[in-house]
C-alpha cells in the first residue's frame, strides 16, 4: 500500500510556474561577475580593516607593538582592548536563542586560536595586512585543552538550539534483554569548518546614528535587530544588504566578533570600513561543527527487528559558550524500536564555539547510525536494504504520531532499482573491476525535519497588471530568488516575468531564517498568503462593482490566472487586474501574508523529508585509495517548486556527505591549540575529480499537513544517508569497518 496521501487539489491551485525547472533568475548576474557580494562594495573614502588574531589558544595578550603598526605607511588606526569603546550590550552575555558569545576586544583574554586580538585600519589592504604582522603580540600562555581526553567534560542543559539532551521512550532494559543480537559500537566524527567559498565580509558605513552594512546574512531582519542592539540604536536605523551570500551553511546566521569590530571601527573613525576575513580566520571566530564521539547499542531479534536502540553522543564545545552537536537525536525518528534512549554529553576545549553547520546533529548522527545498522545487518546476515525495511517506521518512533507524509518506501524501491542494488553479494570483498580494484556497494537512509519558522511578505498589484512582491529572504545558493518568485507568481495568477521580486535587504518584510531547510516553506508560504490576500481584495472589488463582468459572482466564485480574474462557471466573464484597479481609481492594491505552521498540525503529525542513498566505491587493494564512482539518491520532500534547483540542492548535500566521509577534518595542534590545516590545501573538501556520476531522484510526495504549499526542505537531507552509504560501501569493498571519520587510506591498508 502506498503510504502517500493524495494531494487535495482544491486546497492550493498551482499555476504555470511552480514545478517548472526554471533556470536561476540571478543566473545572468552570477555568470557575468555582476552579482554584488558584500566585499565587492567600495564606497568613497573607504578604509580597509584586517583582524589580528591570536596564535595561542588560551591565556592573555601581554603586549602589542601598536606603535610599530601605526608607523607603517598607510596605517590609520589600531584598535585594541586599550582603546576599543564598549558595546551597548556585553558580548560575554547570551542575547536571545541564536545569540552566541563573541570576542570583540572586550579584554585581553585569549580563549581560542585565531581569536581577534586587534584590528588594523589602513588606506590599503596591503598596509592593513602588514600592520597586523607588525603588532608582534606577546602572550602569557596557559596550556591549551584540545581533544576529548584533555577537555573538561560536563552535562549540557540543552543541545543544538534549545533541545533536550536526553530522551527515553519504552523500556530500554527490557529491549536489551529481549535481544537475539546486540551490536555495541563507537564512532568518532571530527571538527569541521563551514568554509563557505565567500569568507565572512562586511562593509560598514555610518551616517550619524544610522548604519548601512553590506554583509552576507542568513537571517536578515533578525540580524538587523541584533546589530542595532549592540550599538544602542533602534533596528530601523540599520540597513542591512545581503542580496547574495557566497554560501552560508549555518555560519552566516549568527553575529560574530569580526563584523562587530568592523562596525565599531567605522563609527570610531567616521569612515566606511571594509573587512573580509582571510581564509585562515574562517577557522576561529565564525563557528564550526563540533567533534563527536558516539556509542550505539542496537538490540535486535533473530530477524533483525530492533528491540532497543541506544545512542549516546559526546560533542566538543568552547570554554565559554555552547552549541552541542545533537548527534544522538538522529536515532529518534527513523527506525521503529519499542525502546529508544538517547543521551548527550559535552567536553569543553579551547577552540571557538561550534554552531549550526549544514544538518547539525543529523549529519554526524546519521554517519554513525547508518553504519551501526549495517553492522547489525552483517552480524545477522541480511541485506542492508532488507534490514531497513524490517525496521521501517510506520509512525514516528519518538512520539507515536503519524507522519504528515512519508514516501521512504518508494525512495528505497526507486533508488535501489536505479542503482541496480539487487544481486549485491552479502559478504564483503566479493567484487572487483577490470583494473583489480575492490568494488563495494553501500546504502543509507536519509532523514531531515521539515520545520517552519515565521516570515512575512507583501504583494502589491499594480495598475499596469504587474506585481511587486517583497520579503527579506536570503539566497545563499539554494535559489530563493527563483523559487520564491515562482511561488509568488502562482499565488497572483501571473507569469513570473510580470512579477518583480524584492528581497535580500532589511527594509523589507521579515523573510525569516535561511536555515533548517525551512526557508522556501516559510518565506514561500508568506508570499503565497500575501498574493492570495491581494487577489481576494481585488475579487472583493470586482464582484461588488456593477460595471464589472464579474459582478455578483461572489468572491469565492472567481479565480485568478493569466493576470485576470475569471468567473468559475462562465469563462466568458473575466477582467484584467489593471482594469479592475483603474475603474476603482486605485493605482495599486496591497496584500500581506505570514508564513508559519498551524500549531494543531504541528502537534498532531511528525513532519520529515526522507530519502535513500546508494553508493559505489572502488578501492585500490594495495594503496587503499578510495574513489566514489556512483552516488544515487532518492528523496521525498513534499512538493518540489523547481526540480532543477532542488536537484542541485540534493547534489550539494550528497557531496557534503562524500566530503564528511572521506575528506574533512580540522586538526588542532595539541601543544599550541592552533588549527594546523587552516587553509584549503590542508582542510580538504572534494575537488571535481573526487565527484562521481550522480543522480538525485525526486520522489512524488503529497503532504497536506506540512504547510499550505506542501513544501518540505531539500537543503540538508542529502548529507544524511550519504556518509553512511559511502562508509558501508567501503566496508563492502574491503571488509574493513572504519569507525572514525574521515576514512583515510591508512585505515584501509596494513
Amino acid at each position, binding site marked *: 500500500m502506498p503510504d502517500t496521501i493524495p494531494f487535495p487539489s482544491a486546497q492550493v491551485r498551482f499555476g504555470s510556474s511552480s514545478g517548472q525547472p526554471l*533556470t536561476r533568475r540571478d543566473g*545572468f548576474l*552570477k555568470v557575468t*561577475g555582476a552579482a554584488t*557580494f558584500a566585499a*565587492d562594495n567600495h564606497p568613497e573614502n573607504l578604509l580597509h580593516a584586517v583582524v589580528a588574531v591570536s596564535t595561542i589558544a588560551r591565556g592573555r595578550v601581554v603586549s602589542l607593538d601598536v606603535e610599530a603598526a601605526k608607523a607603517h605607511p598607510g596605517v590609520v588606526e589600531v584598535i585594541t582592548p586599550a582603546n576599543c569603546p564598549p558595546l551597548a550590550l556585553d558580548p560575554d552575555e547570551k542575547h536571545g536563542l541564536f545569540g552566541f558569545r563573541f570576542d570583540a576586544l572586550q579584554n585581553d583574554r585569549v580563549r581560542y586560536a585565531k581569536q581577534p586580538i586587534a584590528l588594523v585600519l589602513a588606506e590599503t589592504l596591503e598596509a592593513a595586512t602588514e600592520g597586523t604582522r607588525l603588532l608582534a603580540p606577546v602572550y602569557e600562555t596557559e596550556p591549551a585543552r584540545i581533544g576529548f581526553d584533555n577537555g573538561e567534560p560536563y552535562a549540557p542543559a540543552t543541545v543544538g538550539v534549545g533541545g533536550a539532551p536526553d530522551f527515553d521512550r519504552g523500556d530500554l532494559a527490557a529491549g536489551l534483554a529481549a535481544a537475539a543480537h546486540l551490536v555495541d559500537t563507537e564512532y568518532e566524527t571530527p571538527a569541521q569548518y563551514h568554509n563557505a567559498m565567500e569568507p565572512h565580509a562586511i562593509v560598514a558605513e555610518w551616517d550619524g546614528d544610522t548604519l548601512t552594512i553590506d554583509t552576507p546574512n542568513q537571517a536578515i531582519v533578525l540580524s538587523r535587530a541584533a546589530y542595532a542592539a549592540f550599538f544602542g540604536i533602534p533596528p530601523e536605523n540599520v540597513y542591512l544588504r545581503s542580496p547574495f551570500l557566497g554560501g552560508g551553511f549555518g555560519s552566516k546566521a549568527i553575529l560574530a566578533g569580526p563584523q562587530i569590530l568592523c562596525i565599531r571601527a567605522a563609527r570610531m573613525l567616521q569612515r566606511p570600513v571594509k573587512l573580509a576575513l582571510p581564509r585562515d580566520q574562517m577557522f576561529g571566530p565564525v563557528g564550526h561543527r563540533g567533534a563527536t564521539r558516539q556509542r550505539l547499542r542496537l538490540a535486535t531479534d533473530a530477524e533483525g527487528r530492533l528491540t532497543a536502540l541506544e545512542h549516546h553522543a559526546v560533542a566538543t564545545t568552547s570554554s565559554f559558550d555552547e552549541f552541542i552537536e545533537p548527534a544522538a537525536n538522529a536515532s529518534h525518528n527513523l527506525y521503529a524500536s519499542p525502546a529508544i534512549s538517547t543521551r548527550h554529553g559535552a567536553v569543553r576545549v579551547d577552540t571557538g564555539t561550534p554552531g549550526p553547520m549544514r544538518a547539525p546533529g543529523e549529519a554526524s548522527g546519521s554517519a554513525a547510525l547508518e553504519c551501526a545498522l549495517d553492522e547489525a545487518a552483517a552480524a545477522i546476515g541480511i541485506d542492508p536494504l532488507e534490514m531497513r525495511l524490517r525496521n521501517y517506521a510506520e509512525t514516528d518512533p519518538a512520539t507515536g504520531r503519524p507522519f504528515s507524509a512519508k514516501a521512504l518506501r518508494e525512495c528505497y524501491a526507486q533508488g535501489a532499482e536505479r542503482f541496480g542494488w539487487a544481486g549485491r553479494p552479502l559478504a564483503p570483498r566479493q567484487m572487483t573491476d577490470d583494473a583489480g580494484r575492490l568494488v563495494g556497494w553501500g546504502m543509507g537512509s536519509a532523514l531531515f525535519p521539515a520545520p517552519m519558522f515565521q516570515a512575512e511578505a507583501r504583494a502589491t498589484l499594480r495598475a499596469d497588471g504587474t506585481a511587486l512582491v517583497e520579503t527579506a529572504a536570503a539566497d545563499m545558493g539554494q535559489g530563493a530568488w527563483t523559487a520564491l518568485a515562482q511561488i509568488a507568481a502562482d499565488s497572483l495568477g501571473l507569469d513570473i516575468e510580470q512579477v518583480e521580486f524584492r528581497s535580500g535587504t532589511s527594509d523589507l518584510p521579515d523573510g525569516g531564517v535561511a536555515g533548517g531547510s525551512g526557508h522556501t516553506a516559510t518565506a514561500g508560504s508568506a508570499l503565497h498568503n500575501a498574493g492570495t490576500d491581494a487577489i481576494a481584495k481585488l475579487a472583493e472589488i470586482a464582484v461588488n462593482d456593477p460595471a464589472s463582468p464579474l459582478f455578483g459572482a461572489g468572491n469565492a466564485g472567481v479565480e485568478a490566472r493569466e493576470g485576470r480574474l475569471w468567473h468559475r462557471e462562465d469563462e466568458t466573464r473575466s477582467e484584467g487586474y489593471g482594469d479592475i484597479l483603474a475603474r476603482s481609481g486605485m493605482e495599486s492594491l496591497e496584500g500581506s501574508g505570514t508564513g508559519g505552521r498551524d500549531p494543531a498540525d504541528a502537534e498532531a503529525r511528525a513532519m520529515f523529508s526522507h530519502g535513500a542513498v546508494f553508493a559505489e566505491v572502488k578501492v585500490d587493494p594495495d594503496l587503499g585509495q578510495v574513489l566514489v564512482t556512483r552516488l544515487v539518491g532518492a528523496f521525498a520532500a513534499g512538493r518540489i517548486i523547481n526540480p532543477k534547483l532542488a536537484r542541485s540542492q540534493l547534489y550539494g548535500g550528497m*557531496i*557534503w556527505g562524500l566530503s564528511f566521509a572521506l575528506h574533512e577534518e580540522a586538526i588542532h595542534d595539541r601543544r599550541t591549540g592552533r588549527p594546523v590545516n587552516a587553509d584549503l590545501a590542508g582542510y580538504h573538501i572534494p575537488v571535481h575529480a573526487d565527484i562521481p556520476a550522480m543522480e538525485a531522484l525526486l520522489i512524488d510526495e503529497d503532504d497536506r499537513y506540512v504547510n499550505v504549499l506542501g513544501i518540505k526542505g531539500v537543503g540538508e537531507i542529502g548529507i544524511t544517508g550519504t556518509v553512511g552509504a559511502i562508509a558501508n560501501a567501503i566496508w563492502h569493498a574491503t571488509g574493513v569497518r572504519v569507525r572514525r571519520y574521515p576514512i583515510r587510506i591508512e585505515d584501509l591498508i596494513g
Partner: protein
Amino acid sequence: MSLSVTLTINGDRKDVVLEDPRVTLLDLLRERLHLTGTKKGCDRGQCGACTVLVDGRRINACLALAASLDGAEVMTIEGLAVGGRLATVQSAFIEHDGFQCGFCTPGQIMSAVGLILEGDAGDDPDRVREGMSGNLCRCGAHAGIIEAVLDAQKRVAGEEGKAA
C-alpha cells in the same frame, strides 16, 4: 615607491600606477579598478575563485604580483560577454545549473574557458574533471559545472567546424 605598468584588461589598455609593490593582480582588479567579478576565496592559490586569463592562460590572480605583469593581456569574467551577449560557457553554466551561490562561478567559468582554449581535455568527462580540479566549489555544484563545460566545449567545437 610607486611603479607603473601597462595592462590590457578585457581589451582596454590601462596605465596603472601601483603605489605599493605588494599589490597582487587580484587586489588590483578588485580594490583599485573595481572589477569585482573576480573573487577572493583564499588568497593562497588554493581555491581558484580568482582565476583569470593572462595572455590566454588561466592563472590564480591572487598569486601574481601586478608589478610583474607589465604588457600583459588580462581577461576577467567582466570581459567574457560581448555586447550583453553571453559567451557559450556562460550560458551553459546557466542552463546546466553549474552554480548555486555563485561565488566560485567567475573562477570556474574563466577556468573552463582556459581549459577549452588549451584543447587538451577532449570530451572525456574524467579529464575535464581533472582539468577543473583547481577550482573549488563548496555548494556542491560540481555535476552541473562539468556538464556545462562538456556542453560548451562541444558547442564551441561545432561552431569552429562550421567556420572552417
